[in-house]
């Protein structure tokens, strides 16, 4: 991979992150009425209000407020929670491991379900197995996680008693949230893998592999799947976004103490600095994942470098 491509891609990512920070700083201006009054309540002392107004930069014109905020962000200062009076970065650091754990587990679930399902559907194209696999995938796309979650709790925690209802204690408590969050991604990946695999299975090199007497397993795994994986990698990056925002709802369903539930709590408390910090962290992670996917794609496929 040429270093020019690398530099160009990283510069673009940095520009986007700055844009995201700008937009997030402006969010507070969208709050109807007086945001300070909303946050502190009507009974707050005038001094407290003035102090909060100053610390949020609302006593200054919008461009100045945004610039001051970007300046603080550049020094990785996310401000202080209005509710607990603790630094936002500390609150996030506390909650981050739970979300990372959940996201990785959901990814594992998605891959474990999607790969066999996609291969099965492509190999039996037009058959009963294909129809069943794709029907299942469409169902997975359509069932909202805030409904799937409670249903899983009802079945596995209440009826069968296999897993805890909610919270984060031990590996067993991770199973249902990971299933809930992973389902949607599994559905998308399975659909994508099927169509991509169908394309590569009709390539000349697959015919050649078959002609030289390779077993079907070797043809699919070594020749077709490797090439079919490319577009799936891109979708993987895009789906990371769905995973991160999906975590907001899934964490709420299971009382999972991660970034998503921190965001929802902060919104309910109108704790603006925390909302801003969470949104910024999640979007920056998303941009980083997408940039890495792009770079991985370029590394895997030389044609991308030429046209990008």
């Amino acid at each position: 991979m040429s270093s020019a491509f690398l530099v160009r891609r990283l510069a673009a990512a940095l520009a986007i992150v700055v844009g995201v920070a700008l937009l997030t700083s402006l969010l507070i201006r969208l709050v109807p009425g007086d945001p300070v009054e909303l946050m502190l309540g009507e009974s707050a002392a005038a001094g407290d209000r003035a102090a909060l107004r100053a610390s949020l930069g609302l006593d200054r014109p919008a461009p100045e407020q945004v610039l001051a905020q970007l300046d603080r962000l550049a020094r990785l200062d996310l401000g202080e929670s209005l509710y607990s009076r603790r630094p936002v970065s500390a609150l996030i650091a506390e909650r981050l491991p739970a979300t990372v754990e959940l996201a990785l587990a959901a990814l594992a679930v998605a891959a474990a379900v999607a790969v066999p399902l996609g291969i099965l559907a492509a190999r039996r194209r037009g058959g009963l197995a294909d129809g069943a696999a794709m029907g299942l995938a469409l169902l997975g796309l359509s069932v909202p996680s805030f409904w799937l979650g409670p249903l899983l709790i009802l079945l596995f925690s209440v009826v069968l008693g296999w897993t805890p209802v909610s919270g984060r204690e031990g590996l067993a408590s991770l199973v249902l949230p990971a299933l809930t969050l992973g389902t949607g991604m599994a559905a998308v990946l399975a659909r994508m893998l099927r169509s991509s695999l169908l394309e590569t299975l009709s390539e000349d090199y697959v015919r050649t592999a078959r002609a030289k007497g390779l077993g079907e397993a070797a043809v699919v795994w070594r020749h077709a799947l490797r090439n079919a994986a490319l577009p799936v990698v891109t979708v993987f990056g895009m789906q990371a976004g769905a995973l991160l925002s999906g975590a907001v709802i899934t964490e709420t369903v299971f009382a999972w103490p991660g970034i998503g539930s921190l965001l929802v709590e902060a919104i309910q408390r109108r704790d603006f600095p925390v909302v801003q910090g969470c949104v910024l962290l999640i979007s920056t992670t998303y941009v980083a994942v997408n940039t890495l996917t792009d770079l991985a794609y370029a590394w895997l496929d030389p044609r991308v470098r030429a046209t990008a």
Partner: protein
Amino acid sequence: MSAATRAALAALAVWVGAALALPMLSLAPDTVDLARILEAPGHGSWLGFDEVGRPVADRLIVGARTSLLVAAAVVAVAGSLGTVMGALAAYLGGGVDRVLTAAIDVFMAFPGLLLAIALAGLMGPGLDNLVIALAAVGWVGYARLARAQALSLRRREHVLAAQALGAGTLRILRLHLLPLMAGPLIVEATFGLAGAVLAEAGLSFLGIGVQPPAASWGSMVREGVRYMLVAPHLVIVPGLALSAVVLATNLVGDWLRDRLDVRSPAVTGRRTT
């Protein structure tokens, strides 16, 4: 048309029909019957009663109307705004295009529902804020698609001929570009509708969408979860309706995409909740 597509169209007809017929039905979605709190579906009560003794069937129909109103408004606002902006940017090119592309890139950097959650949460509850928040996130998809479409169309002969005849920008957009772009945009809008239905329900589930006592399928699940052990129908019924509508819309979207022969990965990035 396959049996599945026909069933999906029928399901959508029921959804739209119930939502539109609501004012003509004499429902009592907010009437409390204390004797029937948490009553399961059974004789004399269609779908049972909720935690304060309101009929679930009536609230389900109100929820159908909520989801249709919000989703249709979101698709209309986001779709028209995004299409016009994307097509204009591609057609005008230069600085306009660069600014729009940068804006699209920044908005795309917020994953899925995140920006809508933050926006709706900060602007406060209410149907109009919900629509604004979802449209503010949704326009990007249409803008990107319309821009790509218009870029490939703007040097076509019929467009050049119209320019040579002195037609104005808006006239060219309306008469010479938009009709040719309609196919992919309709497919995108169909998946967008499914996405908006899910998003409305998702935000209402989080408590930042439709507010009580108004009913939304999402808020019905939210309220029902607390009584799931004693009255599972409170969660199962609205979730089933919601999943059926989203599944039907996705099926119709797949069918339209095949029919209009659109190569679009729309559905891959559409699952937002």
